[in-house]
């Protein structure tokens, strides 16, 4: 028996990638507007809570954590981590097109490596552990992405 990931499960993986990268970008943009925070100016952290970019970033990162834990309920850690590392690629593209940063050859190589890593795990099963009597069919679970 094989088990394809359901469309909702693919949606959760995509949500992990997008919420983490867009959330980090929003926090970065918001904190850039707030300014440098050090031990003598901790009050700035309170002000940061009223910055809309920081607020959106916090909400997105809470969403990321919820989606990430949900994905771990039906997939291996070694499947979820590389699959969601594609968020780093989204983050680099956001930095290029939203923040107008430069993408160096090293960064482009990094993006290529992460895309390859995602390809490696996408073609394999989402869950592999053995000896779980509660879920006897999980060994055969297959993402179906290779077909």
């Amino acid at each position, binding site marked *: 028996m094989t088990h394809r990931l359901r469309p*909702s499960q693919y949606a959760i993986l995509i949500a992990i990638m997008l919420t983490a990268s867009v959330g980090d970008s929003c926090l970065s943009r918001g904190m850039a507007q707030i300014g440098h925070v050090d031990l003598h100016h901790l009050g700035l952290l309170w002000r940061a809570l009223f910055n809309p970019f920081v607020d959106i970033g916090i909400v997105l990162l809470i969403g990321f954590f919820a989606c990430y*834990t*949900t994905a*771990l*309920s*039906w997939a*291996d*850690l*070694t*499947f979820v*981590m*590389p699959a969601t*590392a594609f968020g*780093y690629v989204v983050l*680099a593209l956001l930095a290029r097109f939203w923040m107008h940063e430069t993408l*160096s050859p*090293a*960064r482009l*190589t*990094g*993006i*290529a*490596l*992460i895309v*390859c*890593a*995602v390809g*490696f*795990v996408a*073609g*394999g099963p989402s869950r*592999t*552990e*053995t*000896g*779980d009597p*509660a*879920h006897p069919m999980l060994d055969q679970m297959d993402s179906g992405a290779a077909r």
Partner: protein
Amino acid sequence: MTPMLRIWSVIAFVAALAIAGEVLIASAMRGLGDLDRLRTGPGLRGFLGPIRAVLASPKFVIGALCMALNFFAMLFALSIADLSLAGPAIASLTYIGNAIAAKFVLGERVDKRRWLAATFVAIGVILLSH
């Protein structure tokens, strides 16, 4: 202790906290199974069942505490080391450490493809920080 050894000790500690947190949370979520089956009904109220089950798991709570500690340890690491060193070093160590912990603690079958994926992501993260 030399400054460099101190920096790398802190980096290893931050990565170890992240690995412990991720593995505990993964173990807790695996024990619960597919959260869709725990939904108590349609709509937003249906999510109360999964949320209650997740928050009642001691492994999840300890894992989340490790992740919170990891956040503050990361802030400390950034106060003694450059972001360009600490950021990618912690992320890469966490990816590789998670693959090792997934094999020996969680009992996942980490085949060549997954080892390659973890290694590629670790190197990719380092390159992205340049």
